[in-house]
């Protein structure tokens, strides 16, 4: 498949169209509102489902196969925030707190973007390693800690003991559900997963449609902040994912991941967290402006990855894997 066909395939998938519908709903000021409990219920469901599937796959994976990719993931989690911080400080000329905040978001990972990548691969009938959700759990936390450390070292962090902050990140609901799902999936194995599959596996894509409808509304509500965000943030929000996406794909290939797996690692690196990171940053770095970090992660990078990024990283992966299935 050529690039355009890939983009088309992606754009016409129900989940992307639902995301667009959510944007439209906000732009036409529809009275459509997602009750907050529905949003929370869907996010609990998605995180747990991803964990369960990954865990069941893990129960059949040799730890050896996991080693390389896990190291690559941890490396990304530590290195990405370092240069992200430097770029925001030097090029963007933003404050220490804002730079650290952006570094935390772009070094961590967006679970929904990850899921969208799996969904894209499924539609294109490209296989991938079952243990990838484990990598998500590995990538979520380190960047946040590195970025907050950076802020402390540079004198930009105002409040919160390390204990509070670590607790916030490690006991946060997204890590808890993802890890919890992984453990449950690994412990109860594929037989256990089979029993809950009609709830956690089969309807997953459809539930994702609802979730992305809401995500579209949330992202669109941030669009008006784009005006004040400035050119640097726009460039950052598109440029960093491209950089990290290619890097992630490359690292994945080197670490022995398949075509699909490398694509996903690229997507993970390219994505910016908007669940774990914002909560931690808001508590530990209150002087950082959410108008920058949330807007960049949610209104720029997330839609970019969802629509254009995922097929691009896949094309890069195809190219690196020297003609994969294309």
């Amino acid at each position, binding site marked *: 498949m050529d690039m355009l066909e890939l983009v088309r395939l992606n754009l016409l998938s129900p989940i992307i169209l639902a995301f667009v519908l959510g944007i439209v709903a906000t732009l036409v000021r529809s009275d459509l509102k997602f009750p*907050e409990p529905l*949003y*929370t219920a869907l*996010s609990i469901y998605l995180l747990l489902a991803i964990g369960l599937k990954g865990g069941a796959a893990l129960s059949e994976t040799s730890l050896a196969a996991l080693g390389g990719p896990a190291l690559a993931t941890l490396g990304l989690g530590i290195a990405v925030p370092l240069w992200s911080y430097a770029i925001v400080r030097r090029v963007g000329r933003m404050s220490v707190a804002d730079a650290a905040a952006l570094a935390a978001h772009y070094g961590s990972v967006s679970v929904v973007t990850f899921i969208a990548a799996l969904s894209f691969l499924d539609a294109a009938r490209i296989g991938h390693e079952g243990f990838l959700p484990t990598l998500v759990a590995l990538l979520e936390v380190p960047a946040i800690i590195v970025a907050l450390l950076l802020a402390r070292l540079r004198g930009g962090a*105002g*409040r919160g003991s390390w204990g509070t902050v670590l607790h916030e990140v490690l006991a946060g609901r997204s890590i808890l559900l993802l890890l919890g799902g992984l453990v449950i999936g690994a412990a109860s194995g594929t037989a256990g997963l089979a029993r809950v599959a009609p709830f956690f596996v089969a309807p997953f894509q459809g539930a994702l449609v609802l979730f992305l409808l809401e995500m579209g509304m*949330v992202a669109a*509500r*941030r669009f008006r*902040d784009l005006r004040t965000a400035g050119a640097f943030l726009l460039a950052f929000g598109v440029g960093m994912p491209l950089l990290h996406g290619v890097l992630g794909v490359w690292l994945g290939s080197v670490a022995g991941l398949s075509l699909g797996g490398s694509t996903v690692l690229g997507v993970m690196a390219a994505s910016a967290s*908007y*669940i774990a990171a*914002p*909560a931690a940053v*808001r*508590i530990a770095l*209150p*002087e950082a*402006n*959410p*108008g920058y970090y*949330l807007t960049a992660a*949610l209104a720029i990078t997330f839609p970019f990855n969802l629509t254009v990024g995922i097929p691009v990283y896949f094309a890069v992966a195809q190219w690196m894997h020297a003609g994969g299935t294309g």
Partner: protein
Amino acid sequence: MITVALKKVTIIAEAVLEPRLIREIRALGATGYTVSEVRGEGSRGVRASDWEGDNVKVETLVGAGTADRILEHVAATCFEHYAVIAWVTDVQVVRGDKYLNPSDREPS
């Protein structure tokens, strides 16, 4: 009905602050509190998160001294960086003395 004149302190803040606020107002002498979910808009356009269930309203019935300490504390630690609004109302509370802590009782 015999009631006791107390202060009701109301704080509306980003939901992310809820655990901290509750910890702190209890430490400052409140014997209890009530929380509800609200949403709103103020001077600050930007919001910390669109997922944290918007704002919370924290209400606590306390003596005048405690009310003052809570407001001082909130003003000193939350107003600069967070979306917060706080006010006090005079109320008459049934069996109100059980919501006073020792420091509130002395001056009166």
